[in-house]
């Protein structure tokens, strides 16, 4: 949604995101105003997992922070913890570059300033999900972080923080860190603001609806292709490992491909080695998840989990 001057001026503060949604509701004509208000409540209910009386949050379902990793890494992640670029100490193929990305250093530094008491080395980037299998670009296994590890006060960004390096959010002078920090504040909130962020994200540009949104539709809107709500989780000295994950999720498309490879391995034509390797690693990931007591589910559509 295009940020109005009002949005930018009122970017910070505990009610900033709620106020933005209220302004979005108020901007509609009288008929649509009722639907916008009703859909705002539907999104809140879907993400908070609140019963109809809105009294308490049901932790068994509702919004979650998720990370995606390739199946090959799952056994290691579960046993030794999920790593970021600062504690991975990965020895790459080829040689290490002379320096890390300057853009990433600037953005990570700015995000760290948004997260109280944290440094960029302690940040692990997750995405907000409802029922889907996360950001597939980063791996085929989606690990769902336990709600207890995702505080109400946790900082959340309404988009990939790297969008701060792209127009129209990027400062005219890309190296202007102060301007970058100011822009970062306009996309930042807390976990409590996620329903408001999601409402604006889902209905942005979609045109007014004359019907109520469903939970499945809310879930589909949370992660759309490359567009997601980002969570820089601060984990000082306490990497995410098996005990911090509530569940693993696989996409139905990957599960179907897995099964096709297995069928061809059994009945011919013999799949290629990369197919067999990919499938074998997924089997081992599933085995490791079971051994660590982390249940595994298949997402049959973005909106629905089995």
């Amino acid at each position, binding site marked *: 949604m295009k940020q109005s001057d009002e949005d930018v001026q009122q970017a910070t503060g505990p009610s900033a995101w709620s106020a933005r949604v209220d302004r979005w509701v108020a901007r509609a004509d009288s008929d649509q105003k009722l639907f916008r208000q009703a859909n705002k409540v539907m999104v809140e209910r879907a993400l908070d997992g609140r019963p109809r009386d809105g009294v308490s949050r049901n932790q068994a379902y509702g919004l979650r922070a998720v*990370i995606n990793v390739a199946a090959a890494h799952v056994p290691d992640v579960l046993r030794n913890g999920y790593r970021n670029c600062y504690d991975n*100490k990965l020895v790459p*193929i080829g040689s290490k570059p002379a320096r890390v990305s300057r853009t990433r250093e600037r953005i990570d530094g700015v995000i760290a300033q948004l997260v109280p008491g944290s440094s960029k080395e302690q940040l692990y980037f997750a995405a907000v999900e409802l029922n889907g299998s996360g950001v597939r670009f980063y791996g085929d296994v989606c690990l769902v972080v336990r709600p207890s590890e995702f505080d109400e006060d946790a900082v959340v960004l309404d988009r990939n923080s790297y969008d701060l390096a792209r127009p129209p959010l990027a400062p005219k002078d890309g190296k202007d860190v102060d301007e970058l920090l100011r822009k970062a504040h306009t996309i930042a909130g807390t976990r409590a603001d996620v329903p408001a962020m999601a409402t604006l994200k889902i209905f942005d540009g979609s045109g007014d609806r004359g019907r109520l949104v469903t939970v499945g539709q809310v879930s589909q809107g949370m992660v759309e292709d490359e567009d997601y709500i980002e969570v820089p989780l601060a984990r000082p000295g306490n990497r995410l490992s098996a005990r911090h994950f509530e569940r693993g999720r696989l996409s139905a498309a990957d599960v179907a491909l897995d099964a096709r*490879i297995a069928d061809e391995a059994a009945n011919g034509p013999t799949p290629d080695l990369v197919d067999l390797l990919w499938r074998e690693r997924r089997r081992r990931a599933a085995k490791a998840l079971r051994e660590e007591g982390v249940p595994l589910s298949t997402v049959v559509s973005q909106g629905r989990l089995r």
Partner: protein
Amino acid sequence: MTRAWFIDALDARGGLAFASHRLPDLQEEIEDVEAPAVHLSAPSFAPEPLASRATGLSAARAGFQFGLFVEGVEVGFEELDDLINFVRRAYGASGGADGSNDPGRAPPPSPPPDGGTDGASYEGMRHEGEPPKGSGAVGAMLAMIDEASKRVGATAALMRQELGTSSMLLAHAEPIKLASDGSDGSGALEWAAVTLGCELVRRLPTSREDLPRWLDAMSSLCRAAWDLDLDGRILDHRDLVDAGRHVFDDRLTLLFDADVAEELGGPPSDEVAASVAACIMGCRFDFLDLESASLSHMPGSVWWGTWRYESWLRLTAPTGPERFSTLARWPLPSSTAARLNLDAATSTLADLLCAMTAAPMSSPGDTLDASLLLFAATHLVGEPQHSWFGQSSGDPRTAWRERQLRQAEDWLVRQFPKRIFDPAIEALIGEAKSLRYGPATRKER
């Protein structure tokens, strides 16, 4: 300066990459975030266009390596297909490190260095098995790949000289067309099976607790040899004697009844040691080609005991579609692992298959290793022998075996590279064999 396809972020073990068409800018103050970008993902590696480089550049936060560099400069690819080929092959080669990355996947462990009979050390008793006379068409294919890489290297050097830039390293690749030459590889399969069997015999554990994992590995190898109609075709293999001597006396009772072990007595002659090793691998005495007066005078209890063990081994061998998984149960001899630059303690036939097909230039095996590769491929693509072949001989059996070999070779042709890079880039693919998630054991360059 010329634009090319560059890698923004790479997770070679995960089979994931982000690439963009641009100038080399990962070391600049500002990257061109809006340059055309694609995402690649195993197992298809089909390029998916992205809205921008943002998704890829932020991947480096999550443990992807940042770009692809050689001596401080980015590696560029003229064609996206070549970049895709590189990422795909690096993923395949990374399979060579799976044993060391996942303890649950490791094969039965090697015996301690001071184990063995007659007071001799295990390492002191080992002899390198004599290589088979040939590895069929596989050896010829590997030689062709080696020749092609030298040619490509010379061309690449000229191209870089003409390009005259030091701000990027342009990868160069040329096509290679491999095909089976139809040479006989049947002897290679026997050598491979016996080599793997002997390594497993050496790793027979000393305690009952470790026995199930070992039995899974041995019974599956026995079954694989049976499916490939290798039963009884034991050749004069020096490793058999060594393996048999290594387990004599103190471990036989793990597998055979006490009266069998007592009847065998000790220390064994070469023939008896080899026979025991062969039996542990599931080959019945009456199928052995070894000539020995001592064998024919073996007590009946020994014949009966070994027959019962062999029958049990075959009956409990796993069946089903997980043939690639079974390759990961069979450990490699340490000499093979060393030649292929794999981890000696944990590498398996699955690792060899990944390393030699995806990174053949960095896995310079010999004839024995090529035989192991052919055995792995034949196990993956072969169909179980028709039961009526039994112990018959002649044209049907020969024809069946030839078809198995041709199918395996055709499959290998599809797995080998279709475009060879210059040696500098081929070496990068080889490095994927030792990738780890988290702190690496490989020395930083």
